């Protein structure tokens, strides 16, 4: 349960809000590289943290993320012509470069210098790991580039998709650290999905349906460990990292690629659910990539030509009551991503947490909210740099492993929880 003012504080990320200021401390995924595939390609509308922006790649391949609207009469530059190192408004020909600087105002003499006095707000946009990342905070406080392992391995080892989710970012993100829902909502997928099945560790999930949880604070956020009984005085641990404010990893299964998410606010009632898969030491196989493109694992099938899931609220998520009754799925909805999205969207655009009744096993969520509130207040009130800004915090890895029963997993899995170039993930 949260008080209304706490809920509002955490859920509102628009410009000038405390949480909006907080989010603007971090690099965030803005677009897939495929959305701006080549110089002078069509620009793309982007809304992030409640700001309407436009992304484009100019004639020299430089990337820009600028205010969507022309400074002249306020038309959308999405209609613009991307040509000769700039984006030209089709209405009266005003032209802007990737920094938002106006370079031409055709109606005014060049010598007048009028164009130099026009500049749209812009944010840096950099390409890394098939993702275009942006930082929307004060330029003087721009942190070093993100170092999440999925974005630093060679491109043939990583695969990223995104889908729009029609609810506030926090209720989506909380699903990523809510390990206790997996045994219900996603049961069945463990044995059927090509990106999960066959792992040795799956037997522990089957044998012990009542995992016990341990939550430990980490430098960048949290580690949420779910343990199950295993042989030889051991526990089978699945350890989920959360890095502030909105990155979550999913513990691996066998040698399958590892996956996880970013939950990026579009506005207060919509977010992007980014889903990655990568392998630290090998290229993804054709079969794995085909499965990901087919919406398996944490990915989804799309409405063609969009990043909207094919199963969405407009078609009741293709609810299959017969499948639910027969046990093919637990909720009647197909696919892990949409199983989550359907329920999280059903909470409403912004979940009313004043009516919740949390239980002890929700401590991962309780702790995440607590840490977010504490860090956001420290940042807004005292300027304290939040956890998760330091790129060192990004180098955490999810892990699945066996440990002796008296070992603290933060210690016993210390090496497993650290990304190391050329070192395979720790997984059972």
């Amino acid at each position: 349960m949260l008080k209304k003012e706490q809920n509002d504080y955490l859920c509102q990320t628009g410009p000038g809000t405390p949480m909006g200021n907080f989010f603007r401390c971090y690099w965030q995924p803005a677009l897939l590289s495929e959305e701006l595939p080549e110089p002078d390609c069509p620009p793309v509308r982007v809304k992030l943290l409640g700001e309407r922006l436009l992304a484009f790649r100019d004639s020299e391949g430089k990337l820009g993320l600028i205010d969507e609207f022309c400074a002249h009469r306020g038309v959308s530059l999405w209609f613009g012509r991307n040509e000769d190192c700039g984006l030209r408004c089709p209405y009266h020909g005003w032209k802007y470069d990737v920094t938002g600087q106006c370079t031409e105002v055709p109606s005014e003499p060049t010598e007048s210098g009028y164009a130099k006095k026009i500049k749209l707000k812009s944010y840096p946009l950099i390409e890394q790991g098939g993702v275009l990342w942006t930082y929307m905070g004060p330029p003087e406080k721009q942190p070093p580039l993100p170092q999440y392992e999925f974005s630093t391995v060679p491109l043939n080892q990583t695969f990223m998709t995104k889908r729009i989710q029609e609810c506030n970012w926090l209720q989506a993100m909380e699903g990523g650290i809510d390990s206790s829902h997996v045994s219900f909502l996603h049961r069945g997928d463990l044995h059927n999905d090509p990106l999960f099945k066959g792992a040795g560790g799956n037997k522990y999930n089957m044998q012990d349906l009542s995992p016990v949880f341990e939550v430990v604070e980490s430098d960048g956020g949290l580690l949420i460990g779910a343990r199950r009984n295993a042989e030889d005085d051991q526990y089978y641990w699945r350890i989920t990292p959360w890095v502030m404010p909105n990155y979550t990893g999913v513990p691996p299964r066998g040698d399958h690629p590892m996956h996880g998410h970013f939950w990026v606010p579009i506005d207060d009632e919509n977010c992007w659910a980014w889903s990655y898969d990568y392998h630290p030491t090998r290229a993804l196989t054709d079969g794995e990539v085909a499965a990901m493109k087919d919406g398996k694992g944490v990915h989804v099938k799309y409405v063609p030509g969009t990043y909207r899931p094919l199963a969405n609220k407009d078609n009741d998520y293709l609810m299959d009551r017969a499948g639910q009754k027969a046990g093919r799925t637990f909720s009647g909805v197909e696919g892990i991503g949409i199983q989550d999205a359907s329920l999280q969207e059903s909470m409403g655009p912004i979940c009313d947490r004043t009516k919740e009744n949390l239980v002890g096993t929700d401590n991962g969520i309780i702790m995440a909210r607590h840490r977010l509130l504490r860090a956001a207040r420290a940042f807004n009130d005292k300027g304290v740099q939040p956890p998760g800004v330091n790129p060192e915090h990004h180098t955490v890895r999810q892990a699945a492993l066996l440990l002796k029963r008296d070992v603290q997993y933060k210690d016993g899995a210390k090496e497993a929880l650290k990304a190391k170039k050329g070192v395979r993930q720790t997984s059972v």
Partner: protein
Amino acid sequence: MQSESAKMTTAHEAGFRVQYPNSKQRAAKVIALDPASAAIVEEISKKSWNGAAFFTSLAFTAEGNPGAVGGDLKAWLKDLAGRTMDLVAEVEHSDFVVVITTTGADARAVSVIADACALFNKSLVGLIVPGQDDSDAATTESMKYLRPYTRMLVIASGTDYIEAMLTALRA
């Protein structure tokens, strides 16, 4: 035609959610396992709570008996006014139990509380907060006491989490 899901997930529709309370007051029993956590719990107990009751288990160790740790579940708690309370009765009339210890402290009393919880099938949440010795070794020692018995174990970096957690649980 608009689907049911599309219609029902709007902010407008959220305004029609039933406004009646969806839960009754729950009885949370919060038990400090060592002197340092007892001091923390005493401080927290002064705030306004939704029926939570706060205890120390110091009677288990500091004052020897009465009833004691002998495995017959006749152990006693102390409430914060110093009154002796029957552990079994308190647990029986609880909805869930939270035990709190500080790193490095002797938290063996948890085993008796866990026995009582097991008797009545009550959920036991464990919370470890920093004590005078908050080294990894001390944390591991505390964890060894609590891990065998708790459904959820939290290792928090500050005592402020206790209040946050109890509030979140409507304690």
